[in-house]
């Protein structure tokens, strides 16, 4: 019986691996700019909706942190948009939070990525619910209530999705607090 030669046996597997590896590297290299542009475009396209009066956005100079500056047609700063993420009920939530130019008030909130329960937790993407955050002052953390909000810093939870509601609020509170410290410290331009 002929002696087994494993390398000779596997030549097709080895050749295919090399060919596929090379091919995939080529695909990734040629599509990466487009994929990155899609992600950035998704973020930037939300800025006019998140900060009233702004028509476009750009990346701000904020050291390590990622912050977007919202600009009006004349190029003046109308506010800020900060990306924030954290654990939701099912998976990581990625949010964008719009703030006015002084960072004193939230102007809007948008959910970039979520995998919450369809029909319940994914209502965090509904505009009517997200709009509760707009106009909240940032000096006090936002509090989630299960009933109709009474104090100005309160919002109402989604029925059947208390954890999702709490998660969004906690992520937003933490991100806003950090941003306020950075902005006060002069770290963001």
């Amino acid at each position, binding site marked *: 019986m002929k002696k087994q030669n494993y390398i000779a046996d596997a030549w*097709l597997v080895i050749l*295919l691996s090399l060919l*596929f590896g090379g091919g995939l590297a080529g*695909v*990734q290299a040629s599509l990466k700019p487009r994929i990155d542009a899609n992600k950035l475009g998704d973020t930037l396209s939300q800025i006019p909706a998140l900060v009233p009066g702004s028509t476009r956005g750009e990346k701000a100079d904020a050291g390590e942190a990622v912050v977007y500056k919202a600009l009006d047609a004349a190029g003046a700063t109308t506010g800020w948009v900060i990306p924030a993420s954290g654990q939701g009920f099912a998976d990581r939530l990625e949010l964008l939070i719009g703030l006015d130019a002084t960072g004193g008030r939230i102007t809007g909130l948008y959910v970039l990525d979520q995998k919450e329960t369809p*029909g319940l937790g994914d209502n965090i993407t509904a505009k009517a619910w997200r709009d509760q955050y707009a106009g909240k002052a940032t000096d006090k953390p936002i509090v989630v209530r299960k009933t109709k909000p009474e104090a100005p810093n309160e919002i109402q939870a989604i029925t059947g999705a208390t954890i999702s509601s709490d998660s969004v609020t906690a992520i937003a509170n933490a991100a806003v607090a950090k941003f306020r410290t950075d902005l006060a410290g002069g770290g963001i331009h």
Partner: protein
Amino acid sequence: MSNDGPTPLERFVQGIIPENPVLRQVLGICPTLAVTNTMEGAMTMTGAVLFVLVCANVLISLIRGMLKPHLRILVFTLTIAAFVTVADRLLAAFMYDMSKQLGPYIPLIIVNCIIIARCEICAAKQGVWTAFSDAVGQSLGFGLALGCIATVREVLGFGTWFGKWLGWHVIPASIPTDVWSPWVIMVLPPGAFLTLGLLLGATNWMTARTKKA
């Protein structure tokens, strides 16, 4: 090209109803359950499976003479994984919203049994044209099954059909909620199990009736 085995046309027709991958072979159930709460998800998944299955079947058929019996599964998996990665990147580049919505289910096509079964049953044994029409037929069968389930789930769960792409409201949004409100359960996983179960039952019932007649 060998003369044994079904012809390209037979392979094509078999895939759609008689050997439907979901309803007859009960393969590929993970994507069937996971992405069928909207028609957009179901059709994007079908498109991705069509791309991967056609590419994998054609390539395997071309190199079938060089396959070593004990290494064939490795070659199948390698080929499928490569094309799935291409499909995933293409979706992220050109259909970013769908790529976000389908999330991990596109990379999971790698472990979709329909594709490896077709490589084993058809492409590793028959010519390129047979393998090609087999891939298209099986993908259409897959799409048909996904479309049926997604139609039931999206209409009952959201009241729409292709709601995001075409904005069709099958059930008018103006209907007061005390008359009809969306069935949240149809959007959630139980809705997928219920619909698939009833559909499988209906298929079996119809087959039994046809055989008797």
